[in-house]
């Protein structure tokens, strides 16, 4: 490859081959509506937990799909399951179940255990 004067910054590098997609697969299997999420962010906008912390379901959704589970594992536990995100979702994604399934997935996969 020629040197075009551009380079991939290490911190912005997403390595799909190395990433662990098992959590995403688990959620897809049990809650198919997760696939239709367009990451619009309505869930994050209405989130009660988001008022007090940096918790953002939109961000977590993207990270789960990318397979970058580190941050998800630390943050998914903050949700209070109040269900507002499910009500505002314009795509009808059952977000409350997505969070419950993500927690279950981490629990089942011991190396990722919460």
């Amino acid at each position: 490859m020629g040197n075009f004067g551009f380079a991939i910054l290490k911190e912005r590098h997403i390595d799909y081959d190395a990433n662990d997609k098992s959590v995403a697969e688990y959620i897809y299997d049990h809650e198919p509506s997760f696939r239709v999420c367009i990451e619009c962010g309505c869930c994050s906008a209405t989130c009660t937990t988001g008022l007090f912390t940096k918790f953002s379901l939109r961000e977590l959704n993207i990270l789960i799909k990318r397979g970058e589970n580190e941050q998800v594992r630390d943050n998914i536990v903050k949700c209070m399951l109040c269900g507002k995100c499910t009500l505002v979702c314009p795509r009808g994604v059952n977000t409350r179940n997505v969070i419950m399934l993500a927690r279950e997935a981490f629990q089942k996969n011991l190396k990722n255990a919460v």
Partner: protein
Amino acid sequence: MQFDPFIIPFNVGLYFILFYAVARSVIWFRDLSRPDKLRLQRGFFGRAFGQSLKDIFLESLVHRKILKSNFRLGYMHMSLAFGWFLLILFGTIEADVFGQNHLNPPYKAIFFKFFNPDHGRIGLEAAYSFWMDLLLAFILSGLLLAVIKRFTSRVVGMKKTTHLKTLDKVALASLWLIFPSRLLAESFTSGAYGTGSFLTGSLGSVLASFLPAMELSYPFWWLYSLSLGTFFVLLPVTRYMHIPTELFLIFARNSGIRTGDRPGAFKEIQTYSCSSCGICIDACQLNFSAGISNIQSAYLLKGIRNDEDVSEIADNCLMCGRCDQKCPVGIELTPLRMVMRRAGVVVKNDGNIWKRYFPDRQTLPVSKSNGHPLYDWLPEPETVKADVLYFAGCMTHLTPAIKKSMVKILDASGLKYNFMDEQGGVCCGRPLMLAGQDKEARELINYNSQIIWKSGAHILVTSCPICYKVFKESYYLDVEVMHHTQFIQMLIREGSLKLNFLQKKVTYHTPCELGRGSGVYDEPKRILKHIARLQKTNFDDENSLCCGGSLGNSKISYQKKSKIARDAAAELTKSDPDMLITACPLCKKTFSSATGIKVADIAEIVVEALAVPKSKKSQPAGAFNRKEPASIN
């Protein structure tokens, strides 16, 4: 001593089931918690005893509740249970009075005709035979309905009936065989001896005219005894276990024992009291609106009895409580489901039939094992002193019209109040509980409790029935918890709110958590009658529908949820009202997108009716500038 080998199967079955029932009752009693044991003892030797006997007669035998709601189904159950009971009772009297000895072993009454074929020719004996034939005809008519129901359940007014397992089918077949075989056995004997009344006598003489009645009667007596014996032996491992269990349940319930939130012996008793009649399936909106017909309470309890993994079934429920209201046995279905949710995935089924006669004590984990949330991020609780605290709740923040209306009402009331979660507060904890995570919910409950305690308030008003239920049941608070409908009703009664009458037709939707969940039915309707023309619907009070938006069900898809919402809204707006009123922000949100008619919370319509004071001077004293807390009574 009259004896014949054919009575052996019956006797084996009878003494087995009697011994089993006693042994199982002792085990259940042993497994009850200490306070429950005391309650049961007190109930057994106290006033509850008479009440229990009355309940057993009315519910277990006559099946009053089913009769009231569905006559044909009730008749079917009554003819089998009450008819059989009468047949045994009068059979025993017959054997004792007309037989050779008084005080006979039970089989004498059951096989009376075989041992006394000449009985019933004239006088009192004939009249008695007529009565016994009438009872048999009564049972057979119910049995006929039961057989038809198995094939087309609509005949008895039921849309769905439960699916059965192999053992259930064998037990069902033996139960069905009992009475026809008795009829044929008695008829052949009567035909041979020329006795019997209108049923057995007539059938007997017809059969005897072309068949060797004497020879044929004997195999039918065997069949009768065998089917009785089979039924009794299979009873403990099939749904017919509900017959002995329900007696225990009625005593326990009348003694004041409730499911509570822990698994235990009483949960097991309730599980076995279910007869799988299927009334809960017809009551369930997931069945008749969303087409999900394998998760209803009858299936949940059957799954628990068979030691299957019921976590999927337990989670797929709106928790609306319609089945609790309809259950003819009065099983606390929703609390049982909560217990199973907390347990998560529990599988113990090792396929051993013998073990099912004495199942292991159901030791369920008290809290769910998978996925622990962590709430170390909760902010420092801030408290403001006030007399009245207003907690809007998460859902009310999604429907700002309600909280704005409530602020107007609170302002108009003149009370010193504080809007506890004006900037968005911490969840009340009930959604976590509905997901089976009670331990984690406690953290949120403790957090909110601190704020409420420190505020020194007398009244806690909430707009959300979900919050109301948890504040009322799971918080330990020294304040009066009020739903805003109760609060508004109190203000109206005290004269603090002056309302105009609106020329509007409205229908009222009772939210599940407020109505069936917390028993608040009257207050919202009184307010509505005060300010508008309230129309009746087919689904009022205990029979109200769920809007479909319930947080209870995390498994149902958006499409099915909105189908339930559309169906429910269509039912509630049948009379074409100007507004559909509800008292729950979640119901309002769900219905808004499901109907063309304006949906509003009760607080909004109250604000609309709020009388504008003409001048400050003409106000009645104390109505708008009162600062002392409202009286609590």
